[in-house]
């Protein structure tokens, strides 16, 4: 009995430790004294509560892109903001509670970052009719006070897929998805379509880190690293990740192997750890910041409209980054693809 208890204690502590480690490589500043931004002089500032997905502010990716939108609104519109992040494995009630507590604290405009918030937004928005909600990446909750911010991730992924195909020397590239959901599938499908457009015979490895309902694949640096190491050893020389905070591990593996990686959501050649920035070929930028800022400014000037708002290539909602100059030589070709997608000449599949 005592022996089993001791083994159990060690494993339980290790499991908890790992859960904490999953995101400890990122500076966990989720919700530091951001709420103390001085308001614009005069009238009461607009209050915006941000409920982040697993990983929170500091994931150098999806959540950070959303945070950037809030930070811009703080600087330009004088809004008052408050951060709160999800933990992996939390009950559904914790998400509802997060939204509710932000509302209780006076933040009557709520940005819910990530589709996992859809059921919580649906419930809370129905009860809190005076509060305006923006739900990023999901149309599963709709209502007169909900704006659904979505992106054409497949179009942006098409461009970085084409970039990978043009740049690979081994004719072998890879894709790492954080969690196998229809949303992340959209990245994969676009990436493969872009790569095959350039070279139909290209070999493409695909790997997902976790399966729903386990969402730790978005915040496990170790899992991202292990998966990318495997791909580089198999001969891939460029790996694109759509895995949120786990992408940090992909970059570490690329650095160690002397190969390329492609970032996601933010321009990661600017946001990743300084030590690994030089391995980032390009990033598929998903301008969550534009979506978030657009929502806040629409509330501010009274033009808020509920319903889905798609930020595609045409609207500047997705793009590829050129930081570091690694894709300068193929930029002309990529811009051609971009024009063809915008004009409708190329139809990028989404599923």
């Amino acid at each position: 009995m005592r022996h089993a208890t001791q083994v159990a204690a060690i494993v339980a502590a290790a499991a908890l430790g790992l859960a904490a480690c999953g995101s400890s490589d990122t500076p966990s500043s989720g919700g530091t004294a951001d709420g103390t931004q001085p308001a614009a002089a005069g009238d009461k500032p607009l209050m915006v509560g941000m409920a982040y997905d697993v990983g929170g502010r500091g994931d150098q990716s999806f959540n950070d892109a959303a945070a950037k939108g809030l930070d811009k609104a703080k600087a330009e519109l004088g809004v008052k903001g408050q951060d709160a992040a999800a933990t992996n494995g939390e009950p559904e009630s914790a998400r509802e509670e997060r939204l509710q507590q932000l509302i209780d604290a006076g933040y009557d405009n709520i940005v819910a970052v990530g589709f996992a918030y859809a059921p919580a937004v649906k419930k809370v928005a129905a009860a809190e009719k005076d509060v305006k909600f923006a739900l990023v990446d999901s149309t599963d909750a709709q209502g007169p006070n909900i704006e659904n911010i979505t992106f054409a991730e497949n179009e942006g992924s098409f461009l970085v897929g084409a970039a990978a195909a043009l740049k690979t020397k081994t004719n072998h590239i890879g894709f790492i998805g954080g969690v196998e959901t229809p949303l992340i599938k959209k990245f994969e499908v676009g990436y493969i379509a872009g790569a095959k457009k350039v070279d139909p015979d290209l070999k493409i490895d695909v790997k997902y880190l976790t399966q729903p309902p386990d969402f730790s694949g978005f915040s496990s640096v170790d899992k991202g690293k292990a998966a990318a190491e495997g791909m580089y050893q198999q001969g891939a020389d460029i790996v694109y990740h759509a895995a949120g905070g786990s992408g940090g591990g992909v970059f570490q593996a690329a650095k160690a192997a002397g190969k390329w990686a492609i970032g996601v959501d933010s321009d990661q050649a600017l946001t990743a750890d300084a030590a690994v920035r030089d391995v980032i070929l390009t990033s598929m930028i998903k301008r969550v910041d534009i979506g978030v800022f657009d929502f806040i400014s629409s509330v501010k000037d009274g033009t808020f409209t509920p319903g889905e708002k798609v930020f595609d290539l045409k609207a500047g909602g997705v793009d590829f980054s050129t930081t570091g100059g690694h894709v300068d030589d193929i930029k002309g070709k990529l811009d051609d693809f971009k024009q063809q997608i915008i004009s409708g000449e190329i139809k990028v599949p989404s599923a």
Partner: protein
Amino acid sequence: MSTRFDARRILRAIAAPVLAVVVAVVVTSLILAAANDPVGQVWSVILSPPKPRVVAAIINAATVYYLSAVAVAIGFKMNLFNIGVDGQYRIAAFFAALVAGQGWLPGPLNVLLGLAVAVLTGGIWAAVAGILKVWRGVSEVISTIMLNAIATFLVALLLRKAALEPGGSNIVQTKPIPESSRVPGFPLIPGSSREIYGLVILAILVGIAYWFVLNKTRFGFDLRATGASETAAVASGVNVGRMVAVSMIISGGVAGLVGMPLLFGQDYSYGSTFQPGLGFAGIAIALLGRNHPVGIAFAALLWSFLDQQSNALQIQAGVSDKLVLVIQGVIVLSVVIAYEIVRRANVRLEQRRVAARLAAEAGTPLQGARA
């Protein structure tokens, strides 16, 4: 004499958890201080009385944790370490959702069918580990970890085949359970619109059954005997192999029930947002509650109380939500250390008492004979 003994036993039972919580508070405070976080504010936020709707959320989360911890505790009592509760409850919840979603039976009968499917699935999944241990001597620690991974992929695969996938939606889920088979909640908490899961009753029944079987039946005695000393159990005629298989299956069956309050009281389907990680929380809670049916209840409440405070910590005290994970981890470690300290202290006290009595007997043999 007997009342004094009881008092000492209760004191001993309470001393360790209290010591553990105190150590956890001290260690966490040191971590906070080292990180330059507002120590006083953090504790005042954590210890502030929760709002009615939060109380309801705490009880709901604790209900689910309780079932998970009892499933783990059944194994512990037998010296079996069922890490597989996590996989068992997920695969069980999936099949229960799949079957109940079809609505083959009307109303409450459909709920009972769902529960039966869950117990059966959880039991079968755990039986694999039990049989491997009995027949091939495979450590259940290893096999249940492997089975967790297999359960994850199996459910993901089947979910993709069985699930409804509304166009453009990111949420993949099974067909929702018909309205008539949803278990209504109890509006127990005044001032809160959030109801307590109707299946909280299931958790209470499982707790009572756990206590009864363990303490009042031949099976429970054999189980505890085998856990305490396998050789002694064999000598007294217990079929250890059979006990291992059966207790593993029962543990898995209870694990199957873990997701049921969520399924019938909140989500009504199994999908990508179904709560993960309950099995691992169960291990920690069973340890904290010393495998005791009432102890586990308190541990589950403490655990979900801390969970719920993580939002307030971020919003009101401005510290990272990860802090709650740190506190929970420190509590588990302190609990084990505290139990060991208290156990050793007890052994030493016992030895001293016996030694004193022996010394007294040696001095005055006549009195010793009378005692």
